[in-house]
């Protein structure tokens, strides 16, 4: 049997809205260099296998990194079988290299299980891992099961790994950031069946595209700048060309940007929307695109900003709104205010541009009054849900503080970790009295009930509450002293204000 140079797989947990981009991006680039590459999206196989009542718990199983959570035996057997199926598929293509994409911390558990299964089987494949979930403190737990790891952007490191240039910076280390994104080969989603994804677009196939990497902002709750220290972008010409080629060769007209933010560089952004608007005018292709987007101050925008954004096909832009409180937004270093958001979304409404909000409940400086301002935001912007401009909001699973967030370095300290060592609930605010897990989950429930009452669609709330239920279960066990000894419920109280 002929050997495939490399097989890439994405693993759970990643939301099921779109195919995972990393394997397709890497495949596209490596193929442009002459390698034979195959990709699998194992994340979506979870949705396919557990569709229905079991999906929430199967997703939570992978999301929760701590293996102490209890799940039904029946579910565990099915998960075990599923991972065996993954291994069969990987080995069946007889690859020289197996690349596992660890999208975030939420994919670590699946990675560990997949590596265990691979170790049990006979093969001569070299195994490597990459992705934002790969960080130093976790590597020690899996080092004996992998041959290589890559931290940061994978295209050039993978290319050199396959060529045997093992001295290339980034193989078993952190890569230097790629400066010229336009020089990379275009993503290839050819191995993916695009039908099972849980898209917003009714029965329409969506593919992902990358316009930039990194972020122009440095928000305290986000570690993007650790992975991509500089904000780099592709030329608008190369982006439009990729969209044009995908439309003309595959008939796909709906795109989703993998960027941390699409409108980071205003000059490139305006060129892109102008080019896409012209493409839509000329071809009637009705190209649509979505992705993560930032609120901008209106005074910095050209008069054509909103009309060209609309005509280029902007759809359901995911905006990191985070909070309705200016004090919280300022501490987060968002660079915009509630008033800027009001103005921005009003312009969206006037120009028929649709969006969704992404929120953070329980930021370490969020007082009860700040939280109420977020609830006020839901009330005040309900009219945009009613007009169809806002498609909904993600309320998330409350503020998690993982290692490496800029928030950790802020002085004076705004939080202290509890002894639970659990990034999501194991911290207490040093600024806001009593802002701990109990308070955060209480606020999360209130936010849900307010959104339900106001008929705000809450995206992924089913899976979020499945996960919250498990976290609360773990918290209760920890609080009782069952999961750990020498429990100290409160952190060092001398640090609390």
């Amino acid at each position, binding site marked *: 049997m002929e050997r495939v140079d490399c097989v890439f797989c994405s693993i759970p947990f990643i939301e099921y809205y779109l195919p995972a981009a990393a394997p397709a991006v890497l495949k596209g680039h490596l193929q442009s260099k002459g390698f034979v590459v195959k990709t699998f999206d194992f994340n979506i196989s979870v949705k396919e296998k557990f569709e229905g009542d079991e999906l929430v718990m199967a997703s939570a199983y992978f999301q929760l990194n701590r293996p102490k959570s209890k799940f039904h035996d029946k579910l565990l057997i099915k998960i075990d079988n599923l991972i065996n199926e993954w291994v069969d598929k990987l080995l069946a293509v007889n690859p020289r290299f197996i690349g596992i994409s660890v999208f975030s911390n939420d994919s670590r558990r699946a990675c560990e299980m997949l590596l265990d299964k691979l170790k049990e089987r006979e093969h001569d494949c070299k195994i490597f891992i990459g992705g934002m979930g790969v960080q130093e403190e976790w590597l020690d737990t899996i080092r004996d099961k992998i041959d290589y790891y890559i931290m940061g952007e994978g295209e050039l490191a993978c290319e050199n790994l396959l060529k045997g240039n093992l001295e290339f910076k980034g193989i078993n280390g952190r890569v230097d950031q790629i400066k010229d994104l336009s020089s990379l080969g275009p993503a290839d989603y050819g191995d993916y069946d695009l039908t099972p994804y849980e898209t917003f677009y009714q029965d329409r196939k969506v593919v992902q595209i990358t316009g930039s990497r990194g972020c122009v902002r440095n928000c305290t709750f986000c570690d993007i700048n650790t992975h991509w220290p500089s904000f780099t972008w592709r030329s608008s010409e190369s982006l439009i060309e990729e969209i044009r080629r995908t439309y003309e060769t595959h008939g796909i007209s709906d795109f989703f940007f993998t960027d941390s933010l699409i409108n980071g560089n205003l000059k490139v952004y305006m060129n892109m929307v102008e080019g896409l608007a012209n493409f839509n005018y000329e071809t009637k292709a009705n190209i649509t695109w979505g992705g993560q987007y930032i609120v901008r101050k209106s005074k910095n925008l050209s008069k054509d900003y909103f009309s060209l954004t609309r005509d280029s096909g902007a759809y359901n832009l995911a905006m990191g709104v985070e909070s309705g409180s200016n004090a919280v937004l300022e501490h987060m270093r968002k660079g915009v205010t509630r008033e800027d958001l009001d103005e921005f979304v009003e312009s969206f409404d006037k120009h028929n541009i649709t969006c969704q909000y992404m929120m953070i409940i329980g930021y370490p400086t969020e007082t009860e009054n700040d939280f109420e301002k977020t609830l006020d935001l839901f009330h005040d912007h309900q009219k945009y849900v009613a007009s169809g401009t806002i*498609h909904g909001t993600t309320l998330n699973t409350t503020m998690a503080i993982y290692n490496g967030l800029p928030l950790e370095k802020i002085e004076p300290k705004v939080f202290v970790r509890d002894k639970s060592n659990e990034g999501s609930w194991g911290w207490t605010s040093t600024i806001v009295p009593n802002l701990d897990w109990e308070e955060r989950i209480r606020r999360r*429930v209130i936010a849900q009930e307010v959104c339900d009452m106001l008929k705000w669609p809450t995206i992924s709330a089913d899976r979020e509450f499945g996960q919250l239920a498990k976290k609360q279960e773990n918290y209760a066990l920890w609080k009782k002293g069952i999961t750990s000894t020498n429990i100290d419920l409160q952190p060092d109280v001398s640090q609390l204000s």
Partner: protein
Amino acid sequence: MREQQSIRFTVDHLSTRNIISIEMMGKLPKDSVLNEGKIVKDKKLKIVKILLDDVDIKNYIYKGRQRPIYHHENQGPKTTIGDQLFFNGPWKLYYENPARLFLAHYHGCGQKINSPEKQAIKNRYLKHVITSINLHNDKKYK
């Protein structure tokens, strides 16, 4: 009504079920001027925008239906959809009060991410979380 005009009114009677009705009246066959089978001059009414409780119902407007009173028998379909009235007859749009809630529900329930199945799952786990909070946490949920 001539050219573009805005009409603003307040409905004091807040019954739940309501109908907005806009009617084109007084159009005569002679108002449509034909030249070689093509309409070269016409009288029509275009609904540019409707704001309901300050909500621009730009999408919901297409739920409105007109029952046109045609000049001739079998001149067109019994009811028409759209924001333009080319014949006499009432155009009607149903809504419920409170309008914002009704419209938010209308838009939300059409989304895959907000399906009744997903909401049922969410409600089940939400209930589970609230029970656990009240059982184990010092801060209870009321």
